């Protein structure tokens, strides 16, 4: 008998917990007063192995919210962000998505870090008519889920050819290429390889490396070095710093290296090993674009360090959404309408002044990504 009592108790507890959750519901359904803040939802890796990017995003996002609110907010109302941790894990992104969908305050969703995690969440947003704005999702097929899924990020199809052009211009005739083994890396590699071959450059060695952090890259790097190519190219993320350090310090490689990430951490960790690396980069500290100069100054004032690409793309996402919504209405429909009709979003990243969306692909129309080169321990504009 006792056991059955226990069993029913436990089940009762489960129901009670769900009931508690129900209480939260009622506070949420209160109608939005005119002075209540306009809310964007953010799905991002607060914890887990991608938490570093989550931190960089948060810095950029918060700075942008401050700027929007100082400049008068959205239709006179303050802007606020609601954060949801996914660890950039597709499982958790899919589980979190319905929460944003049913929260009436949230009018648009930003994030996630990786396209695999974003793709797992998109269907729920698409279904609900809530715009999913994947500001970091450069996988070209990311917006294919539906008409409410957009990406203002440069796709690998524009980033890689620009970069390959620059590498071919240095006079390299042969390259060793290593790339991160995930959907992004595979896609980026294909665009890179297809393009650089048309420029008459031969790829003499290729290997993927695991996307999970690895403590030793030397086995593939020894082969990349021994292929005696004119340059070694790395397509990937932050591990580029460790890779170039291993190449130069451990394996004694002296030739050109192109890769890494446009973050202060890359310069910090790779140090002089990074000198001469040309890479995709959204901006340089010597930028002459006034709005990027303002961002630089504000960022340094707020955090005491130089910003990187991830800070800026997160910042731009919030600024541009606010810009668009101010031309329509602060509702879910208003966000979609803004992305469909506004054609002069202020551009912070790349070489254009403003941008619009290709209404077919829901990606950038005529993208113009920028390049930077590491010189004297800094990112300088390339070309």
């Amino acid at each position, binding site marked *: 008998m006792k056991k059955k009592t226990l*069993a029913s108790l436990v089940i009762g507890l489960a129901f009670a917990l769900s009931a508690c*959750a129900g209480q939260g519901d009622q506070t949420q359904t209160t109608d939005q007063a005119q002075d209540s803040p306009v809310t964007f939802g953010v799905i991002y890796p607060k914890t887990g192995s991608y938490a570093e990017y989550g931190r960089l995003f948060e810095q950029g996002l918060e700075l942008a919210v401050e700027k929007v609110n100082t400049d008068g907010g959205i239709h006179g109302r303050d802007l606020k962000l609601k954060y949801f941790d996914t660890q950039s894990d597709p499982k958790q992104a899919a589980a979190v998505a319905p929460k944003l969908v049913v929260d009436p305050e949230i009018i648009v969703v930003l994030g996630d870090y990786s396209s695999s995690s974003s793709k797992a969440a998109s*269907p729920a947003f698409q279904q609900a008519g809530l715009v999913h704005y994947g500001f970091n999702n450069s996988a070209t097929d990311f917006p294919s889920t539906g008409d409410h899924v957009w990406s203002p990020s440069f796709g690998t199809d524009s980033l890689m050819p620009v970069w390959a052009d620059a590498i071919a211009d240095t006079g390299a005739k042969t390259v060793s290429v290593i790339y991160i083994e995930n*959907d992004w890396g595979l896609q980026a590699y294909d665009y890179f390889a297809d393009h650089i071959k048309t420029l008459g450059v031969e790829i003499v060695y290729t290997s993927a490396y*695991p996307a999970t952090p690895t403590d030793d890259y030397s086995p593939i790097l*020894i082969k990349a070095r021994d292929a005696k190519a004119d340059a070694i190219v790395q397509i990937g993320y932050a591990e580029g710093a*460790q890779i170039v350090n291993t190449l130069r310090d451990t394996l004694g490689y002296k030739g050109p290296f192109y890769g890494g990430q446009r973050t202060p951490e890359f310069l910090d960790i790779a140090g002089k090993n990074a000198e001469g690396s040309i890479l995709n980069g959204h901006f340089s500290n010597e930028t002459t674009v006034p709005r990027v100069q303002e961002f630089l100054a504000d960022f340094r004032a707020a955090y005491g360090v130089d910003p990187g690409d991830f800070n800026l793309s997160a910042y731009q996402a919030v600024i541009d959404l606010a810009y668009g919504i101010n031309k329509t209405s602060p509702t879910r429909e208003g966000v979609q309408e803004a992305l469909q009709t506004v054609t002069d979003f202020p551009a912070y990243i790349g070489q254009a002044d403003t941008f619009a969306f290709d209404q077919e692909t829901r990606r950038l129309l005529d993208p113009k990504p920028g390049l930077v080169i590491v010189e004297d321990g800094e990112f300088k504009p390339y070309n």
Partner: protein
Amino acid sequence: MIDTLIAGLLHGNIYALIAVGMSLIFGVTHVANFAHGSIFAIGTMLGWFLGAQLGWGIIPTLAAVIVITSLLGWIISVLVVGPLAQGPPIAALLATIAVAMILDALSQVIFTPVTRKFPELLPTHNLQLGGVHFGTSSVVMLIVTIVSMAALWAFLRFGKLGQAIRATAQDSDSAKQVGIPVERIRHLSFIIASGLGGMAGIFMGLFNSTINPSTGAIAGLTAFVAATIGGLGSMPGAVLGGLLLGVTEAFGVYFLGGSYRDIIIFGALVLILLLRPAGLVGKKLAIETEPMTRTFLGGTRPIQLPWFGNLALIAGLAFIPILFGPQMGSVIAGVGTQVFAYAIAAIGLTIIAGGTGQIILGQAGAVAMGAYGSALLSVHYGWPFLVTIIAGALIAAVICSILIFPAWKLSGHYVAIATIGVGFITVALLKVLEPITRGVNGVYGIPYPAIFGLQITDIRGIYWVNLVLMGITLLLVTKIMASHLGKTISSIGADPVAAASLGIRVTGYKGLAYAISAFFAGLAGALLAHQYTYIEPGQFDLNMSTVLLAIIVLGGLRSPLGAVLGAIILLGVPELLRTIFEDITWFVSIFPHARIIVYGLTLILIIRFRPQGLFQRS
């Protein structure tokens, strides 16, 4: 070629130094300590903090790190592993996984997830052999590895305390009777091993130059593989295993490419377990009995609800999304769909774990097979949902049964360890078999569930689909376990020797029980695939396997109903808590880490105070 050999040896040296500590703990306490990798990672971060932030030199940094990590080891031993000494080793193994979760989360909070440059406490690139530069640091590390191996070996062999340790390892009850302070010796092994682990962390930082709090995870797991290959419990074996694995990995990656790393590492593990389960150096298996039998299961019985109770439970769950209105109802449904899918896999797992007493730490592999089977059949051939999920489940049952079959000739811990390997290999195969599986690109555009042509896109609809399938799973598994087949399977768990002498073909029935478990894991994977609409191999990681096992530990290994409860508590409650408190800023900001810490603590408390689980009576 020579460069690859040197690079492999340098890397293997790190595995060796970590493996020595793991092997020591295993030799003395028979606990596979999965928290060792976390201790090692904390050693790296502490080394960075003292060396780079405080500017300490190598000697004070080493000393301080060794003291702190030894203390941590002592705390783990006294608070967590010690009290479980009389229980089955698998309970302690699970507890150390929980400890690892807590330590990793704390390390992320304390050191923040930034990637940093490790201070050059010793020269790292001043020497050269072939085309490979290395430093005094690597030489010192090699000396430390060999000295600690030799010292521990001599100490265990000749020292008085060492003899006491070996006596404890062989038979702790007799050791106690002759006056050996068994508990203190267990603690001592944790202290020494953890100090070594912390030291290895510093050398790892020097070797790697780039660090962050999650750097240690892979090296920790690989070192465990190295210790197993060398022979758990053997010091020279740990060093040999570490160096060999480093070299094997280097040459494997050199010839096959980086994609093959997991297949090489875990393939080596499975191969060694099959050919020489005691490891290269080990003489006999350290543990001969099945870890679960007689100790964990003896006398426990799952609590069962009467038929109307089960029906009321399902009906009650079905009403929840309606009860709370469309908004909150959808939030609950979003969590509920995951809970039910995991519950289905966990219910299946009770057959093999609760029935035969085999612990499976690689069930994510079966989940992945089901997900891919169902996804590919519906995307490529347009088969209907109800057909593909069953087909996916069957594919999982067949393929995973074949992959895991050789493991049944193993016993004890080694089955659990082998299943970790099989889980990794399954997922690695999905990456490599790109023409069929689309590799790391993943499969997208998987259709939402459709029942008789009616597409279900509303999250509450998917909730009900999953709930109904969970109800059916619950019914089927309960019936199976009550049948003649179920009784036969249970007899293997209760006493494999007695079962065999009664003419029961133990290996065959284990295989059958696993096939049924894999079927339900595959079904769960298929449901997840159609709910996410996008899958890629990385989703089916060790963490998923651990969660599935934790669910049934919580609910009771033999209790299908407990699996449902475990899934609700481990997956559902944290999500609901987050929803309830989402307006309290400070709570939201610490929540992600706090959640993992609470999750780990819950597991430890359950294992410690209610090892039979919540839904089983003793």
